[in-house]
C-alpha cells in the first residue's frame, strides 16, 4: 500500500520511496519483535515450571488440564490443549534464529509484571537459556500436554535434568536465585488465574439459574393457569402460521375448541380476581430476583419490544 502511494505521485524522486521502504521494513521488524514477545514468554513460564522441585512440578502437572482449559476465556473453549501456545512453530523457529530478538524479548519479559524478581542485567546468562527454549516448546506442541500428561512428565523430567546440568555450568548464582524466585511466584499466579476464571464461570451459571427461576416465577404469575394462554397466543398471534408444519407440531397438544372457549371465559374472570394480587407479586419478584446481574440482562418490558418478541416467538415456531 504505502510504496504505491510513494511512487505514484512523485516517481522522479526515488530516494524518499526507498526511505519509506526502509521505514516499512523497520516497522515490520518491530512487528516481528512484538510477535516475538509472546512465544518466549510462554516458553519462559514453562521453563520456570520445569525448574520447580519435582513434587511441585508433579502437582502442577496433575492440575494442568484444568488450568490449561480454564486459562482461556470461558466461551472460546475448544480443545484446551493448544491454548497455552497460541503461536505457530515458524515463529518460534525464527525466534531461535534471530537470537537478538530472542534476547530482546527476554529482556522485555524480565520487565513484565509477572516476573518481577529478575533484573535485565543478566541477559548474557539468559541468552543461552532462551536459545534452548524453542526446541522445548516445539516438542510440547507436538504432544499436547493435557492429553498425555504422563509422557509429557517424563520428557519434562529429562529436560529438567538437562536444565540443571546447564545451570551448573553456565549460570551464575544470581540468575539461579532469580529463576527460583520466578518459580516461587509463578504457580501462584497461574493457579490464582484459574481461580479467577472459575469465579467468573460460577457467577455466570448462578445468574443464569437465577434468571430461570425468575422467568418461571414470572410465567407463573402471568398465567393463572399454566397452559391456557399458549393456544390463545397462537390464535391471536399466528393465525397465518397454523397451516405450515408448525400446526402438526402443536395441534395434537391443543385443547378441543369448545373447551378452550369455555375455559377462557372462566379464566378471564379468574384473572380479574388475580389482577389485584399481581402488582404485589411484581414488586416481590423484583425484590427477590432482580439482582444487579439480572438487571444487566435487559429485562425489557416496553410495548414495542413486546411486539418484537411476539414476532420473535413466531420466528421460533
Amino acid at each position: 500500500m504505502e510504496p504505491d502511494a510513494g511512487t505514484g505521485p512523485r516517481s522522479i524522486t526515488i530516494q524518499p520511496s526507498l526511505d519509506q521502504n526502509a521505514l516499512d521494513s523497520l516497522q515490520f521488524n518491530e512487528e516481528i519483535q512484538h510477535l516475538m514477545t509472546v512465544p518466549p514468554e510462554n516458553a519462559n513460564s514453562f521453563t520456570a515450571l520445569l525448574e520447580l522441585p519435582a513434587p511441585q512440578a508433579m502437582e502442577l502437572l496433575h492440575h494442568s488440564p484444568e488450568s490449561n482449559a480454564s486459562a482461556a476465556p470461558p466461551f472460546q473453549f475448544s480443545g484446551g490443549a493448544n491454548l497455552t501456545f497460541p503461536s505457530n512453530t515458524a515463529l518460534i523457529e525464527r525466534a531461535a534464529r534471530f537470537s537478538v530478538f530472542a534476547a530482546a524479548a527476554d529482556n522485555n519479559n524480565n520487565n513484565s509484571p509477572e516476573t518481577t524478581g529478575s533484573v535485565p542485567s543478566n541477559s548474557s546468562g539468559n541468552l543461552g537459556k532462551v536459545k534452548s527454549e524453542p526446541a522445548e516448546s516445539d516438542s510440547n506442541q507436538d504432544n499436547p500436554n493435557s492429553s498425555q500428561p504422563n509422557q509429557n512428565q517424563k520428557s519434562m523430567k529429562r529436560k529438567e535434568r538437562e536444565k540443571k546440568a546447564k545451570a551448573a555450568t553456565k549460570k551464575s548464582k544470581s540468575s539461579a536465585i532469580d529463576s527460583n524466585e520466578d518459580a516461587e511466584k509463578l504457580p501462584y499466579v497461574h493457579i490464582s488465574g484459574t481461580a479467577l476464571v472459575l469465579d467468573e464461570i460460577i457467577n455466570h451459571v448462578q445468574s443464569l439459574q437465577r434468571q430461570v427461576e425468575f422467568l418461571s416465577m414470572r410465567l407463573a404469575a402471568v398465567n393463572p393457569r399454566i397452559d391456557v394462554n399458549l393456544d390463545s397466543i397462537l390464535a391471536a398471534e399466528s393465525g397465518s402460521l397454523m397451516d405450515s408444519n408448525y400446526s402438526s407440531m402443536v395441534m395434537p397438544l391443543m385443547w378441543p375448541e369448545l373447551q378452550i372457549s369455555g375455559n377462557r371465559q372462566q379464566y378471564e374472570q379468574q384473572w380479574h380476581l388475580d389482577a389485584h394480587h399481581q402488582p404485589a407479586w411484581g414488586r416481590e419478584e423484583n425484590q427477590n430476583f432482580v439482582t444487579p446481574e439480572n438487571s444487566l440482562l435487559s429485562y425489557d418490558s416496553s410495548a414495542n419490544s413486546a411486539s418484537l418478541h411476539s414476532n420473535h416467538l413466531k420466528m421460533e415456531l
Partner: protein
Amino acid sequence: MRAPNSLKQEFLKKWISGLQMCSTCSKNMSILERKKAIKLSADVAMASARNGRTCWSRALIANASKNDKDKLLVEHILGNSEFQRLNKISTMRPTMTNKRVRCKKILKRSCGTIRRVSKRVVPQKILASCVAKRLSTKRTQVLKSLVPGGEFMDDASLIEETLDYIMSLQTQIDVMRSLANATELVLSRKNEQW
C-alpha cells in the same frame, strides 16, 4: 453440534407438552406450586432436548425422577423408551464413581508422602502453592454443586459440561422470556378490549 434454533424448537415442544401435562394433573395450584412445575418441566425439557448425551442432562433427569410425583412428568416429557434408556444409564453410574474414588485415594496417598518430604526442604514454596490450590479447589467444589451431576465429574469434564450447561441455560432463558413476553402482550391486549 446442533443448530441452536432447532434446539430451541425441540425444547419448546417438549416444554409445552410438559406444561399441558402439569395442568391436566392438578387444576388448582398456588403460585409457588405453579412456578415449581413450570421450572421443573422447563428443566426436564431442556435436558431431554439435549438427548441425554451430556452428563448434566442425565443427572438432572435422574434427580427429577427421584420424586414420585415428578417422575410421571419426566416420563411424559421424555417418552417411555427414552426414559428407560436413561434410567439404565443413571443406575450404571455408582460403580464408576466408586472406582474413581479409589483412584483418588491412591493418588492422594502417593502425593502425600512426597509432599511430606518436600515440606522439610522448602516450606514457603509449598505454602504458596497450597494456598493457590486451595483457592481453585474451593471454587471447583462450588461449581460442582451448581452443575447438576457435577459431583461425579473430574475437573476437565466438569468444565466441558459447564459450558454445555451454560449454553442450554441460555437457550432455555431465551425461549422462556419470549414466551413470557408474548403472554403478557396477549393479556394486556385482552385487558384493553375488556
